[in-house]
């Protein structure tokens, strides 16, 4: 299918001809697959057109045209995720790149209001100037700061700066039917401080612990909770890319990588870190991710992985402590020492001090090395992204998948990164999230094995009653889980149908209304 002249003209009338293209060159730029969970298929289906609205009114007009013409649409912010791709023909892309303003930073009530194409790096830098900071999605500073774009919104600072679903305040939503809904205080007052009510909160329709991946309309603006930043307004860096390091680390910051001989040790450690509320950031990195973060190229990554692996005694976690004052820092540092002693943790010496330490702190807080950690090795990253609940269930869950991964490694089907599964603490240990990361070169054999791996992990999630993984994309996966999970698919579909009566919000990665 290609757009008819009438369709093209109508879309152009909304955004202007220069912001619309159906030329193959523009379409194929997006059709090349994302590196996220890439399978053997190099190219994804092409969009019929790329449309670049500049404001909510344009988005709304485009969505209405889609309803009129029976065209599907899919919005994207920075467009990294593979879930930005259409599943088949008949879909236009709403590339929200032109909607890139920070609308407000409210220092007193600690929130920021952004459009979809403000990236975390920008927001974090602006916030720091004001003594504030935000939870940067673990994917990196390069991703949208809109708390409705990141799939989960879990990041390095989630221990102290919350997570996507829970950091969302008021927002603006263009429903698939083309209505503009302004949630909470925005709808009643034009203010951004609250996203709930009057009455029940539509936040629960718009997203869950994951977002609907484009399948439920377009989020055009949103307020996100921000937090206190205990560092200076800016940090001067020395060196040239890719070798940056702070000239001087802000006072009262410290990073450690702790590992334990067994999962029980890590569990005790992470729990105590949470209970004592001492961490600014916690990330369940493993030896390879630590090495990848520090290394500026793959050769170095290999070398450092080997070096670090020798010092890392088992499952581990990377953490940053930041003090609001010298006293606060001193207290936290001493508590950390106690926890290290009590739980028998080993600290990775290589990142304990000097430039490596300082630079790591900065990369950690700005989440700039995620691409190194995930994509650089092979250009592709995937795996099993589990859910969020108790530490125990997350930990139990990944133990199975770790074995399955080892089998893939033994068969040479994924990059042998010699690593432990990833587990991380949210909101000072109130919640836990876990993942098993795989990297590969997507040839057909590998793709099949990766798909089988995920299928097996999913079966395991059902049979072991571990919970619903976050990465469930599309009808087949949802339908696999639905019957075991309170038939949530029934309600998700009802929502889909109610807000998208014509099924125009492209739902390959969400769910379609068809029961």
């Amino acid at each position, binding site marked *: 299918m290609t757009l008819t002249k009438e369709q093209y003209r109508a879309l152009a009338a909304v955004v202007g001809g220069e912001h619309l293209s159906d030329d193959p060159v523009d379409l194929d730029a997006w059709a090349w697959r994302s590196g996220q969970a890439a399978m053997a298929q190099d190219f994804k289906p092409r969009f019929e057109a790329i449309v670049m609205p500049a404001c909510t009114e344009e988005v709304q007009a485009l969505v209405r045209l889609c309803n009129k013409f029976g065209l599907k649409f899919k919005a994207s912010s920075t467009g990294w995720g593979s879930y930005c791709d259409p599943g088949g023909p008949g879909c236009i892309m709403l590339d929200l790149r032109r909607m890139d303003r920070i609308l407000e930073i409210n220092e007193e009530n600690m929130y920021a209001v952004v459009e979809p194409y403000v990236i975390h790096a920008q927001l974090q830098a602006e916030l720091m100037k004001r003594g504030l900071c935000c939870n940067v999605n673990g994917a990196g500073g390069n991703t949208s700061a809109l708390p409705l774009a990141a799939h989960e919104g879990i990041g390095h600072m989630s221990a102290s700066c919350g997570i996507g679903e829970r950091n969302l305040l008021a927002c603006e939503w263009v429903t698939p039917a083309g209505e503009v809904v302004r949630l909470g205080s925005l709808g009643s007052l034009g203010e951004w401080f609250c996203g709930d009510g009057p009455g029940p909160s539509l936040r629960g329709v718009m997203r869950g612990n994951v977002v609907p991946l484009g399948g439920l309309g377009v989020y055009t603006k949103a307020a996100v909770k921000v937090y206190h930043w205990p560092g200076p307004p800016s940090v001067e860096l020395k060196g040239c890319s890719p070798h940056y390091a702070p000239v001087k680390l802000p006072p009262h910051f410290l990073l450690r990588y702790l590992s334990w001989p067994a999962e029980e040790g890590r569990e005790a450690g992470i729990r105590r870190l949470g209970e004592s509320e001492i961490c600014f950031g916690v990330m369940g990195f493993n030896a390879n991710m630590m090495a990848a973060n520090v290394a500026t190229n793959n050769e170095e990554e290999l070398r450092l992985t080997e070096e670090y692996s020798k010092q890392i005694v088992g499952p581990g976690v990377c953490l940053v402590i930041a003090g609001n004052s010298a006293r606060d820092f001193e207290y936290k540092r001493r508590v950390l020492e106690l926890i290290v002693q009590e739980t028998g943790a080993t600290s990775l010496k290589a990142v304990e001090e000097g430039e490596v330490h300082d630079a790591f702190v900065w990369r950690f807080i700005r989440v700039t090395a995620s691409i190194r950690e995930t994509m650089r090795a092979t250009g592709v990253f995937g795996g099993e992204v589990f859910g969020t609940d108790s530490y125990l269930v997350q930990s139990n869950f990944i133990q199975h998948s770790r074995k399955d991964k080892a089998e893939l490694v033994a068969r040479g089907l994924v990059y042998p990164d010699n690593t432990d599964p990833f587990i991380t603490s949210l909101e000072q240990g109130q919640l836990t999230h876990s993942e098993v990361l795989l990297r590969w070169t997507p040839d057909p054999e590998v793709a099949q094995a990766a798909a089988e791996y995920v299928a097996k992990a999913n079966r395991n999630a059902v049979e072991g009653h571990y919970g619903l993984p976050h990465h469930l994309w599309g009808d087949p996966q949802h339908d696999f889980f639905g019957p075991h999970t309170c038939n949530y698919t029934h309600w998700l579909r009802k929502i889909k149908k*109610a807000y998208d009566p014509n099924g125009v919000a492209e739902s390959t990665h969400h769910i379609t209304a068809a029961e």
Partner: protein
Amino acid sequence: MVTAEQLRQVVGEENVSDDPAVLAAYASDQSFVSRLSPHYVVRIPSCDAVPELVRLARETRTSLVPVSSGAPHFHGDTVPSAGDAIIVDLSGLKTIDLVDPKERVASAVGAGVTFGELMTAVAEHGLRLNLPLRPRATKSVVGSLLSREPVIMPHYHWDICDPAGSMEVVFGTGDLFRTGAAAGPGTLAEQRAAGGRQKEAAGPSAMSLHRLLQGGQGTMGIVTWASVRCELIPTLEQPCFVASDDLAKLLQAAHWLVRLRLGNELFLMDRVYFAALVAEEGETFLQLAKEAPSWLLFFNLGAYRYLPELRIEGQSADARELLQGLGLEAKPSLAGVSAWEFLEQVRSPSPEPYWKLRLCGGCQDVFFLTTYKKLQGLIDVMRAAVEAAGFSLSRLGIYLQPIVQGTSCHVEFSLFYDRADARESATVRELAIRVIGPLLAGGAFFSRPFGEAARLIMNRDAATVEALKKFKAIVDPDGILNPGKLCF
């Protein structure tokens, strides 16, 4: 119409009542909503009965009004708005499935469990609740969560839905559903065996239906249990008052204390509210309401397992410096009330009679959310309205609760009035409605609109109402759940 016999078959003989005295208790409450008697009161003996009850109601087009807490009710949400309604009394659902100190959660807490009951249960495991200020003894924890009541520890109030975890709900379709991690896979027992604790509220997948149950006043589903996020009991605490006549300064202090996470319990109130809270009898109330400083900020530092003294020492020094910078000072007592005593009061349920009713017999609250910037203006609006109505300012209490880690502030104007005095009641009733418009204009966001004001408030946002109606049609296609509330 449903018959008593049909109901008895579902919930058992002893759990259905049409005794006029019982019905009368639900026909009105402390608010000014119109009196309407339910047809039956049905006590729910166990969660299993609810789906069948709802199916029966659906078949017979009978309205259901879910109620979890005991009287007195205040907002009119449990008074039927439609004739022939059935009160679904969940207050008998008293189970607490599991308390896990490691995961800091009480899993599957029955809708009828009160704060007192749950606090006792979790305390045995070293846990405590982030609870609303001095809730009434009969208040159900789940009921409180469902109306998104503000809680007194903004530090741990990450999200407005806190401290709610997963929930079990029976929709108006009769379908049972569990939100959040509790959705599955597996039964609760199977999930627990795998390590699951039904703690995550969000999900499953791309919906978080607890958010629609909260604030729904029973219109979206009947919640039978909810998990509750708990906090650790501190090993060391240091409560204190900061008093001032300058609210702006106190707000600044509150902002910084919350921002720097200095303090667990933290809120502000004016002297009238303070007096009402602490005074045992009228005399003291009048004295305190006159003599205490105009405003107070209360905060309580807490420390846990590791180096508690060091933590309290450091935090109190940090807090002191912060307050000094604003020309303020923290004190261990205020107007003869020690901060310790006050702390224990605010974080435990009120003895009977409920403190808000103790002094004058009646209390009408007007509450909303706003930003710090708009606060003073809104207080001025309220005071002007109170004066214009001829009501006494000395019986207007003001409570300011920073919520969601300081992103907004719950403002509660409590009008303590004599319920027995018809004229005064009429004045308060009119005042509470009349002031809504000016407050809205001044930046008040009524995120939890109740009773008579609800429609006025909901009408401000037609798009939200339309969107809510779409969801309502999914979960309650026949409109049997508490019809007449909000916009439904």
